[in-house]
């Protein structure tokens, strides 16, 4: 995302107040906007979500993602595990079969190895196209919406299609309009952006906002980080209360079991051993907690494979990915801190009661 966080970069966003009737917009209208863009501006275009049924090992619905050269070269998110980068120098103006090099996600790589052809009627240009696999993306390559940074879509079952001006001109109004919704204008001035807004308003009847990525961050922070902070504070409060309850119940247990502790101390139990036993016990509880969380996470991730939800299916142990492992690591650290607090308070309390024959009398 930081590649787009530069001065002169503006990211389109349909104003939520703007009325839209797709039926009233035709290709001629969008063409006017693209003509302006092509003549006056440098822009990065990306759009996805065009679902196509093509045979694959996992019977997933495959998503087509379209992007232009500016987006591809700037975003740097399409890391390859095999093959070559995308090429944008092709033409659709041929009588014979059209062949376009594409990148595919790891989930399609067995069915479509490098060099193989995916023959399909493209939903954007509605023509029979031969998509030749030129590269395979690394597992779990993802895309986040520029103004909703928490959103993530994975390319494991996507076909990434390079689009040039000719492709855009040949495509239907759906791709052209969707492309505009997220279009990123680079090296632009405020006045040229205002001019673009007018062109869009005149031809499409839509009100667009163009924000810098900094403004998108602010928007994100206002609506998302604020909520996250609230959730964080509530979670911390709940954790503190639960820790206090756990400590209280442990201390109550000690009061009830002081005779048993004392008898064990008589026959050779030392405080170090007792501390180890307590850490072992609470360690097992924490381990069970982490395992349960892992199972819930794995079920959630694996569920996307089960539901054939191509955009969210991920690779990992049961689909569990790096960010999940980090979250589980955070849980382990947090558990370790709580266990440490509980055990040390318990030991302090136990040591406060002197071992004595008097306890048994």
């Amino acid at each position, binding site marked *: 995302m930081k590649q787009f966080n530069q001065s002169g970069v503006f990211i389109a966003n349909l104003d939520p107040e703007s009325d839209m009737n797709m039926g009233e917009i035709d290709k001629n209208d969008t063409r006017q906007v693209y003509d302006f863009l092509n003549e006056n501006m440098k822009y990065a275009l990306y759009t996805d979500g065009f679902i196509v049924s093509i045979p694959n090992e996992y019977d997933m619905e495959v998503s087509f993602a379209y992007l232009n050269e500016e987006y591809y070269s700037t975003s740097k998110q399409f890391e390859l595990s095999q093959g070559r980068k995308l090429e944008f120098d092709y033409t659709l103006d041929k009588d014979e079969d059209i062949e376009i090099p594409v990148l595919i996600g790891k989930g399609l790589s067995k069915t479509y190895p490098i060099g193989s052809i995916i023959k399909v009627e493209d939903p954007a240009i509605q023509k029979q196209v031969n998509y030749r696999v030129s590269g395979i993306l690394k597992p779990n390559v993802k895309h986040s919406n520029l103004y909703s940074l928490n959103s993530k879509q994975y390319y494991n079952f996507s076909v990434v299609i390079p689009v040039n001006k000719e492709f855009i001109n040949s495509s239907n109004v759906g791709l052209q309009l969707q492309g505009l919704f997220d279009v990123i204008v680079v090296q632009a001035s405020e006045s040229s952006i205002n001019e673009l807004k007018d062109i869009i308003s005149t031809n499409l009847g839509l009100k667009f906002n163009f924000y810098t990525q900094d403004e998108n961050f602010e928007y994100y922070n206002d609506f998302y980080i604020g909520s996250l902070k609230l959730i964080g504070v509530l979670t911390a409060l709940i954790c503190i209360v639960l820790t206090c309850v756990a400590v209280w119940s442990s201390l109550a247990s000690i009061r009830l079991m002081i*005779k*048993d502790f004392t*008898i*064990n*101390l*008589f*026959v*050779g*139990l*030392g*405080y*170090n*051993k007792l501390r180890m036993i307590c850490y072992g016990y609470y360690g097992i509880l924490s381990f069970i907690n982490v395992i349960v969380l892992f199972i819930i996470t794995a079920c959630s991730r694996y569920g996307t494979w089960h539901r054939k939800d191509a955009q969210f299916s991920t690779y990992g142990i049961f689909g569990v990915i790096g960010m999940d492992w980090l979250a589980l690591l955070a849980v382990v650290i947090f558990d370790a801190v709580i266990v440490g607090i509980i055990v040390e308070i318990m030991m302090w309390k136990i040591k406060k009661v*002197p*071992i*004595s*024959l*008097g306890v*048994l*009398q």
Partner: protein
Amino acid sequence: MTKIIDIDIKEKVYKSKNSNLSLLNDFRLEVNTGEKIAIVGKSGAGKTTLLNILGLLDRNYVGSYSLFGLNTNEMNLKMFAKLRNQRIGFVLQESALINSLTIEENIKLPFLYAKYKEKSDVNDFDTVIDDIGIKSIIKKKPLECSGGEKSRAVFARAIMMKPQVILCDEPTASLDGENKERIIALLSKMNSENNTTIITVTHDLEVANTHDRIIRLERRM
């Protein structure tokens, strides 16, 4: 005769909010291996406190204590725990059993804290329960047993690790005549067969009279 215990307590103070209670002032005791010592005295004289100190349960006193020829002031808590496990047996009142465990589990409790090597030179469980006559109750929980049976189970636990010193705290306090005789006989048998040193805190003069020496503790006001 080898000296097994040599203790010289200058002072033991119990601190409370309002006052300090001083016990066992200038108390000295030497015990030889195989001796049987009875400690008697009125309540509050410090009998149990003395037993706590002798049993390495309490180190908060002014003085010196040599046990098995080792200076206890130079030992850490881990060493204390090890000696309690390996070389000291506690014969306590019948209530000193864990109610959630069976009699067998209670008797074998010291094994939990002994290392593998240390378990080799211990009494055989079956022999002990046969000798003591509690074979029929080993699968029972303490609450299902009589006072006499529980006292014998506590005794069995105390001797499982073949201790060199047995510390008894009112071992016959709640027992009837027959069971009292049994416990006294068992202690005498341990003493005569294994040369085990026995120190008993008791109110019962009949029990005290079965020992080689009687030490009377007085409460100093």
